[in-house]
C-alpha cells in the first residue's frame, strides 16, 4: 500500500514537472506601442468567449503567450459561452476579472448596474486605430467603458452536399418540416428568440410581453424539428455533416468553411442581428494598469490581425481592415458593400421586468 501511494506521488510530480514545458515558438513581433515590464509577476484575469482569441494553433500567434513574454504579466485566461453566463459569474462575486469581452446589450446592462470601470483611453495609444463609426456607439454613447473587439452578424449556415444550393433564404428553414432533425438552434435566450422574432417581423427589443409570448410559442413549435440547441458545439456538428442547417455568427461560418467546403451561408431576407463585442474592465478588477496594457496589446495591428483571422469576425480596427495581407481582406460576408447589407437590428438592454420575463420563457421553451 505504501508503494502504491508513493507511486501515485511520483506520477504527480512527473506530471507537475511536465506542466512547466511549453513548446510554442514565439514570433518576432513588430509592436507600435511600448510595453513596460513594471508589472512583471502580477496576474491578469481575462474572461472571453470560447474560440475568441488566436491561441497558437495552426502556427498562428499565441496572443496570451506573447503578452506574457513581453510584459512578464501572467494571463489567467477563462472562457464563457454566453453573455448570460458571463453576467452571472461577474455578479456572483465568486471570481474577479480584469478584462471581459461581452456583447453590446450586456455592456449596456453592466453600465446600468454600475459594474464597469471607465477606461482611460489616453493610456491606450492604439485606440486611434479603431474605426470612427464604432466610437460613441449606442450602448456606450460617451465612449467611456468599452473598446470594440469584433463585429458580426448572424446568418444561416447550411450544407450544400445534403440540401443542394437551392434553399429558401429565410429563418423559416428552421421550422420547415423538410429539414426535420437536421437543424440546430442557439442555446442562449437572446439569440434563439431572435430567430423567431425575425420570422415574426418583431422588434428584437420589444417591451411588449405578448410579442415575447408569440416568439416563445413559435420556438416551442419548432422544437420538435430541431436536432439540438448548441453554442460552439456547432463547429463539430456542421463540419462533419452531423447537422445540415444552423443559425450562427458569420465569422464562424468562415472558420467552418476552411474545414468543410460543402458549407454555404446566407443572411436571411427577414433581416438579422448585428452585434459588437467590446472589451471592458469590470469594477472589481484588481490589475487595472495591466488591463489597459492588455487592451492596447489586443489593438496592435499584428495581434488584431491574428485575432481577426483566427476568429473570422469582422474587425473594427483600421489597421486590420486596410491591410491587404489580411486573410479576409474585403471579404464580402464580413464586410458587405452598402448595397448588400441585410436589414439589421441591434440588441438593446431591455428593462429588467421584460428581461426576466423572456429568460423565464426561454426556460419554458427548453422544458417544453
Amino acid at each position: 500500500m505504501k508503494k502504491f501511494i508513493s507511486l501515485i506521488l511520483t506520477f504527480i510530480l512527473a506530471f507537475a514537472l511536465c506542466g512547466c514545458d511549453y513548446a510554442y515558438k514565439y514570433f518576432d513581433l513588430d509592436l507600435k506601442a511600448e510595453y513596460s515590464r513594471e508589472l512583471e509577476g502580477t496576474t491578469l484575469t481575462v474572461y472571453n468567449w470560447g474560440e475568441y482569441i488566436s491561441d497558437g494553433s495552426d502556427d498562428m500567434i499565441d496572443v496570451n503567450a506573447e503578452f506574457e513574454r513581453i510584459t512578464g504579466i501572467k494571463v489567467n485566461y477563462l472562457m464563457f459561452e454566453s453573455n448570460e453566463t458571463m453576467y452571472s459569474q461577474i455578479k456572483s462575486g465568486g471570481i474577479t476579472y480584469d478584462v471581459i469581452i461581452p456583447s453590446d446589450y450586456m455592456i449596456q446592462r453592466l453600465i446600468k448596474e454600475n459594474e464597469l470601470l471607465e477606461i482611460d483611453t489616453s493610456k491606450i495609444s492604439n485606440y486611434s486605430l479603431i474605426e470612427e463609426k464604432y466610437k460613441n456607439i449606442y450602448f456606450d454613447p460617451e465612449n467611456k467603458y468599452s473598446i470594440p473587439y469584433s463585429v458580426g452578424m448572424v446568418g444561416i449556415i447550411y450544407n450544400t452536399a445534403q440540401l443542394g444550393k437551392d434553399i429558401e433564404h429565410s429563418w423559416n428553414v428552421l421550422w420547415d418540416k423538410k429539414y426535420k432533425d437536421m437543424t440546430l438552434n442557439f442555446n442562449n435566450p437572446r439569440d434563439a428568440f431572435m430567430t423567431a422574432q425575425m420570422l415574426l417581423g418583431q422588434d428584437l427589443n420589444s417591451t411588449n410581453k405578448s410579442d415575447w409570448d408569440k416568439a416563445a410559442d413559435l420556438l416551442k413549435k419548432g422544437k420538435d424539428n430541431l436536432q439540438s440547441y448548441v453554442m460552439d458545439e456547432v463547429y463539430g456538428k456542421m463540419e462533419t455533416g452531423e447537422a445540415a442547417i444552423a443559425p450562427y455568427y458569420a465569422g464562424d461560418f468562415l472558420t467552418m468553411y476552411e474545414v468543410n467546403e460543402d458549407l454555404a451561408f446566407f443572411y436571411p431576407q427577414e433581416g438579422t442581428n448585428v452585434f459588437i463585442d467590446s472589451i471592458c474592465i469590470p469594477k472589481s478588477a484588481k490589475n487595472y494598469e495591466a488591463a489597459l496594457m492588455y487592451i492596447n496589446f489586443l489593438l496592435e495591428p499584428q495581434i488584431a490581425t491574428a485575432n481577426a483571422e483566427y476568429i473570422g469576425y469582422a474587425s473594427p480596427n483600421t489597421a486590420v481592415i486596410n491591410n491587404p495581407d489580411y486573410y479576409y481582406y474585403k471579404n464580402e460576408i464580413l464586410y458587405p458593400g452598402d448595397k448588400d447589407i441585410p436589414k439589421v437590428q441591434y440588441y438593446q438592454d431591455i428593462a429588467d421586468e421584460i428581461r426576466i420575463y423572456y429568460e423565464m420563457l426561454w426556460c419554458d421553451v427548453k422544458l417544453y
Partner: protein
Amino acid sequence: MKALSRLYIALILFFLYAPVLVMIFFSFNSSSSVWVFEGFSLDWYLSLISNSTMLGALKHTLVIAVLSAVISTVLGTAAAVGIMAIRSKLANKLIMATTNIPMMNADIVTGISLMFLFVFVGKLIGLSESLGFVTVLIAHITFNLPYVILSVLPKLKQTDANLHEAALDLGCTPVKAFFKVILPSISTGIATGMIMAFTLSLDDFVISYFTCGDYQTLPIIIYNMTKKSVTPDTYALSTLIFIVIFLLLIFYNMVSSKAERKAAKRRF
C-alpha cells in the same frame, strides 16, 4: 450455463469499455474530429505537451485530490474515534445523519449550497473574490469526509477493546496506545477511505463546477472543452491517464497478491 455467464460478463465489460476504446481510437486521429477517423497520427499527444491549460488543470486536480484525501483522512479518522466514544444515542444519531447528508444528497445541491455559503462569507468579510483554491479544497474535504468515516467506523467496531485497555494497563499513555494498538488494526479501513477520497476528488465535476472559481480542475476544463468542439487532445490526455491508472492497478494487484501469498505461507 457457464459459457453463457461468461459471455454475459464479457458483454457487460464490452459495454463499459466501448466508449473508452472509442476514445483511445480517436486520440490517434490525424484530423481534429472525434467521430470521423481520417488517419493515424501521434500529433495530439505531442500537442498535449504544449497545452499549458490542460496540464495546469491536471496539476490543480492532483493537488486538490491529494490534499483533500489526506486532510479528510486525518479529520475523518479522528471523527470516527470520537464518535465511538460518544455515549449519547441521540448525539450519535444526529452526527451520523449529518454525515450521511453529503453522501446521499445530489451533488448539484451540495455544490450550489456550498457556493452560496462561500459567496455569502466572502461578501461578509469584504473579499472581492470568494471562490478559488481554498473553497474547492474545503468542498472536496466536505464530500470526502463521510466516505472516510464510514470506512473507518466498521473497523473500529471490529477492534477488540480489551487490547486498548491492556495497553493502558501496561503503562501506555492513551495517545501512545492509540498509535501502537488501535491504528494498526484500523489501517485497512483508513487506507480504503483515503483511496476512495482520492478517487472521488479526482473525478468530481459537479461540486467543483460551483465552487472552484478560477482554480479550474481537469473535469472543469474538459467540461468547457465539450462545450465547443472537443479535439482529440482531450482524448489523448484521458488515454494517458487511463494507461497510468491501469498500470498502477496491475502493479497494486501484483504487490497485494504477493503479500497475500506471503501471509498465507506464514500462517501455515
